[in-house]
């Protein structure tokens, strides 16, 4: 493969990384889920080419790999945004109005849960309890945690990222 463009170089770098991951787990029992986790770490999501490589490498039918990927909410076959917004919908957060916060994000970004904005900047997900109930309702954006929110705070938070 020629690697004269930045994109190609990156792609082949990732492919190498994936091969390494598969090799590392080749002899581990029940390797599929750890491999998927690490592959998603590298690619950000799990597109066909990646799943096909894993299927071949671990000798598991692609349909089964896909079946596993589509079973667990942490795995995605769609790319995620640069800023991944997760609105916690655990009971503690729900009772404290996380629903309204989620709605506010949806309207402001004009996307639905599980989607990504057209400019790939934000993706929105509703997640299960992240165990920060003391701060309910909670939203995370990448590694940043925002607690005790109201729907009104959403604009300010997003503005912060829009400028980035």
């Amino acid at each position, binding site marked *: 493969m020629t690697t004269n463009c930045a994109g190609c170089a990156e792609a082949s770098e990732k492919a190498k990384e994936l091969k390494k991951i598969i090799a590392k787990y080749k002899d581990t*029992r*029940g*390797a*599929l*889920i*750890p491999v*998927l*986790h690490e592959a998603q770490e590298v690619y950000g999501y799990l597109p066909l080419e990646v799943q096909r490589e894993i299927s071949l490498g671990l000798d*598991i039918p692609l349909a*089964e790999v896909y*079946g*596993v990927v589509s*079973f*667990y*909410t*942490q*795995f995605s076959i769609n790319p995620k945004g640069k800023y991944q917004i997760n609105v916690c*919908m*655990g*009971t*503690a*957060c*729900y*009772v*404290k109005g996380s629903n309204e916060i989620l709605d506010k994000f949806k309207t402001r970004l004009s996307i639905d849960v599980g989607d990504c904005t057209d400019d790939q900047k934000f993706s929105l997900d509703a*997640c*299960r*309890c*992240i*165990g*920060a*109930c*003391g*701060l*309910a309702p*909670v939203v995370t954006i990448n590694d940043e*945690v925002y*607690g005790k929110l109201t729907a009104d705070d959403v604009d300010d938070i997003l503005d912060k990222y829009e400028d980035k």
Partner: protein
Amino acid sequence: MIKNIEELNALKDRALGNITVRLDRTENPSPEGGKIHILVCGVAGCASSGSLKVAAAIEDEIKKNNLGADVKVIKTGCFGLCAEGPIMMICPEHVMYTKVAPEDVAEIFENHIMGGKIVTRLLAGEKEYEEIEDRLPQIPFFAMQKRIALNNCGIIDPENIDEYIALDGYQALAKVLNEYEPDEVIDEIKKSGLRGRGGGGFPTGRKWESSAVVQDHEKYVICNADEGDPGAFMDRSILEGDPHSVIEAMIINGYAVGARQGYIYVRAEYPVAVKRLGVAIRQAEEYGLLGNNILGKGFNFNLEVRLGAGAFVCGEGSALMTSIEGKRGEPRPKPPRSAEKGLWKKPTVLNNVETYANIPQIIRKGADWFNSIGTEKSKGTKVFALGGKINNIGLVEVPMGTTLRQIVYDIGGGIPDGGTFKAAQTGGPSGGCLPAEHLDTPIDYDSLTKLGSMMGSGGLIVMDEHTCMVDLARFFLDFTVDESCGKCPPCRIGTKRMHEILVRITEGKGTLEDLDKLEVLARNIKASALCGLGQSAPNPVLSTLKYFRDEYIAHVVDKKCPAGVCVSMIKYKIDTDVCKRCGICKKGCPTQCISGDKNTPFAIDQDKCVKCGLCMEKCPFKAILKNA
């Protein structure tokens, strides 16, 4: 490398000196240990609210003031008072500061560390004392608690195995390897009366025994750390605050049943817990507490961490095992039980985090000690995650048999904003709610089951009069439908149909017949779903139907939501007597459904109204009424 028990004890003595300052002890203080320890909660809620920045600020302050030799900062596990985070405690005087911001640190150093004066505005609890003394037991939140599973949380640095060893860590393992035959370990656990803390409350000793009696050279022990109940985070706190207690217990479990390999299945949503476990396992391996010939006693045991990937159903034992096997986390019918054919069809014991966290102390202090705590059939303590409409949101550990009232009012500080207690939900999506009439029920496994709920993992969500119980049932079914694995029709389609009916009811389109259908569906899902989670999925509906049937009737017959939650049943109306016809509401209405001008009275067109509530918010004269 610790080669034998004598070396373990020697290490313990050395390590204890370094942390004596944090304990109510004076023996063995070591000069390297420092005179003042600042404990900062570095996990869960506190980390989310910025405690790590506080810790960094403290480090800076130490450097700035050249206090490196005397003052140490330790990132510990959870103190419990999560809503008040970030939390820190200064030892030896045990003064706890809450809601500490990095900006507060300089003041704390100037006044407290160097000036010997308490910064009263940051104190936990009633915030009125100025004398430096051990106030912790006097803070009501802590006074009624008894910490076993959370024993080390908030005291030790979870990333430092020496601190765990200092507080008798791995002594239980040493005792077991030195003095007990495997079946004697099981007898001890049986005698203690410990029951599983994750779900149904199965006696732990019997569970171990049923795997121990199966002849097989390949067996497994698994720690279920896939804490899935929304609103429960006790396992997270234990793993982040005291990971070695779980590891030690698993080694003991392996010895007792004859397993040499263990897995810890953790939710991927808990990255800190995963990291801490990794560190802890590595340290234990380096010390030879995991691996071959542990403490020179010829016993081998290895531990591996496996990550979940976002599926509530993986909290079910057989689903968890299929997930470890790398498949869709779907449960399988039992029998055969996991004790006979579990992971990779081999005998397997599965215990939850909190259950394991009790084991080392049971071994060390004896079954009789543990047995003396709790109620007749539920021994020991239980950790609850308090959440919802309650003042002290956080983690509490109380003896079994503590009443709901004590937990909610004495420890939890009651309902905020002058609200009234309506119900508490325990057991998450598999549990049910306890109404005010049962506030004085001593809480244990059997009393909760009798009331139509269950202990579950210990989530305890408090509801006040602003919570609609039908909406709450719908919320839980929302969850169940989303998390159903889809393998069996009762859960896959049945919970979906129940959810659809609940949506209809909350939208004001329900009928009395719908209530009957809910009951038929609930009964049959309970009877015939494939796994325990499916069978318990209807519980939130059954229990709200049992205790709050009048609310369902109000929705179905009167088309009213008494709590004012169900949007489609909310009606906004303009009180023309109060209305000054200013027109602010009309301007702000996104659907232009408000009519009226200076000469005609203002009114809301109910067909066009989307119930956003903006008009009510904007009206300067409070002339707009909800549900009038």
